[in-house]
């Protein structure tokens, strides 16, 4: 399953860091952070609950970039 989330992040490098961090979260199949359109496109592994996974994704992203925002 694929879902798109609106995000807010100030620098392009931070967006890349968020992408790396989110990709390591369990239940995430792949993730693309698009800095220009301020979007995060996450595809989830089968059998994982997106809302649970996204909580972890937000945590992981906050860790690498304190200033980021993901609108669930």
């Amino acid at each position: 399953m694929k879902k798109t989330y609106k995000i807010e992040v100030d620098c392009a490098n931070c967006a890349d860091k968020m992408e790396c961090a989110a990709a390591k979260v369990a239940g995430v199949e792949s993730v693309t952070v698009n800095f220009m359109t301020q979007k995060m496109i996450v595809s989830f592994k089968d059998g994982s609950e997106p809302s649970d996974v996204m909580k972890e994704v937000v945590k992981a992203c906050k860790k690498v970039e304190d200033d980021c925002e993901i609108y669930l």
Partner: protein
Amino acid sequence: MTKKQKKMLIRILVSGALLIVLHFLPEDFPHLEGVAEDSVLQRLPRMLLYLIPYGIIGYDILRKAFKGILNRQMFDENFLMAVATVGALVIGLLKTGDFDEAVAVMLFYQIGELFQSYAVGKSRKNISELMDIRPDFARVESENGQEEVDPEEVPVGSVIVVRPGERIPLDGVVEEGDSSLNTSALTGESVPRDVHPGDEVVSGCVNMNGLLRIRTTKEFGESTVSKILELVENASSLKSRSENFISRFARIYTPVVVFGALALAVLPPVIRGLFLGLSPEWSDWIYRALTFLVISCPCALVISIPLTFFAGIGGAGKAGILVKGSVWLEKLSQTGTVVFDKTGTLTMGQFEVTAVHHSPLSEEELLEFAALAESSSSHPIAVSIRNACKTPPDLSRIGKVEEISGGGVIVQIDGRQVAAGNAKLMTKLGVACMECHQTGTIVHMAIDGIYAGHIVISDREKPEAKEAIAALKDAGIRRTVMLTGDRDAVAKEVAEDLGLDQVYSDLLPEDKVALLEELLKSKHPNEVLAFVGDGINDAPVLTRADLGIAMGAMGSDAAIEAADIVLMDDNPLKIAKAIRISRKCMRIVRQNIIFALTVKAVCLILGALGIANMWLAVFADVGVMILAVLNAIRALFTKEV
């Protein structure tokens, strides 16, 4: 400017002003009586004064750096900037008494960040506005007058009224009214299109002069405008190789420079002190190391590449070329072979019956049989035959219908077996057919196994087709190939006239995929093969090619879905234009990569040699970013390309 940006601007101005004031204070101010000249204590009050602008401009960086340490993010640029500037302050306190530098580095870093966020926000807004074709409302007509509603709530078959100057909210057919439509938001062409009752109209066009009453044929979610918006909003989620290269590079670059800085701070003084018997000059080497840290931020690189692609995609969109992601823009620029579908791409795809030959029946009778036989097909040839038949077909006369793929149809009409199709079908049925001396598509007819003549249908070349092929050659395309299900004679004539290099004819839809596989194998591995089709019957080929380009996609969902690049109108000249736009975009990408890397490398070398100070480092960093961003925005301008 957003609130955040305004606040930052005020911080920059205030701390900049303070810095200037402090800089022009007498050098020995504030002077402490009774404290030794040139001592740490003597310099301390001055540093405290400098800490005011430093705090104003850098408090958020310091805060983020602190949080970064807690989260063990060693290569966070906030952390690096904090280390560099705090280090500079400490050196100033212990040795040089120069505090300008630390504050200035922070100041310029923030100016760079502000500029970046402003420029990116601005171009993002510009590009979104460019593609903003979302209709605000639909004016639905009902018994109790007209009502403005959300386009999403309008069911299929409703009648909507579009006044002059308004955007058509939903796809439909004109019921009443004549007008011209401005399609420039969709196609990038400013030539208006005239519409009359019975014409299909697509959402997103602007009604220019007359009042139109339109019966909707699609829901909003299925309408052209939604499809395009969806495509634009999801564009560039597939990243290009250049973007991936830069993000990988950034991940390695920062740690390497930081370790380089560490080595620079420690190794030379130790070697000097222990082995060469010189004074270690610790503060000098640490200063050089701090200069390294200032250069270690990869932001100029990381921002300018996606920005260039984004601007390129936006600029292409303005010209009526929708690109589904930066990876496709990159591939388009590497195109070496262009494979065309003939019908609807190089030719108009509007067939007309031009002659009926060798028929024992009257022309009308034969056409009527043909129209009945082809009544269930949506193929353009079938449509043209139905159009040529004057009497409306009586469908109750039709019995069993058997479609022969790549051949034609065999239909029972009034209990008689009617076969309509190409020569292959006739051979299969054991019917001897007459060759035709005219070029065009020939539909042979046989009734009850007896030859009943043939119908000649021809298609016209698009007026721009010849120029389009020449423009592709000019753009450096090495090979142009045409695939068609049409007969050899027709195909050869068209190919020769247009100046195509190769032509494959008599192809069944499945042959096209197989042939494309072969072409893919024979091409140079670094080169991209693009297939251009109109999305009708060629979706598998569009998907299979390295790069699928669909033309005339206004209203064709299949094409929009299968293709990587969508040309909104059906002008083949746009292919060469799209290639030129992509090349311009890639040129800018390369310029930015080379420029930023060179400046960084030079600064690193000069910094290590002690020639470049922190001022130069931060100027180089911010300067490179500003120039790279400005260069990136050039990709938005595609009119003259």
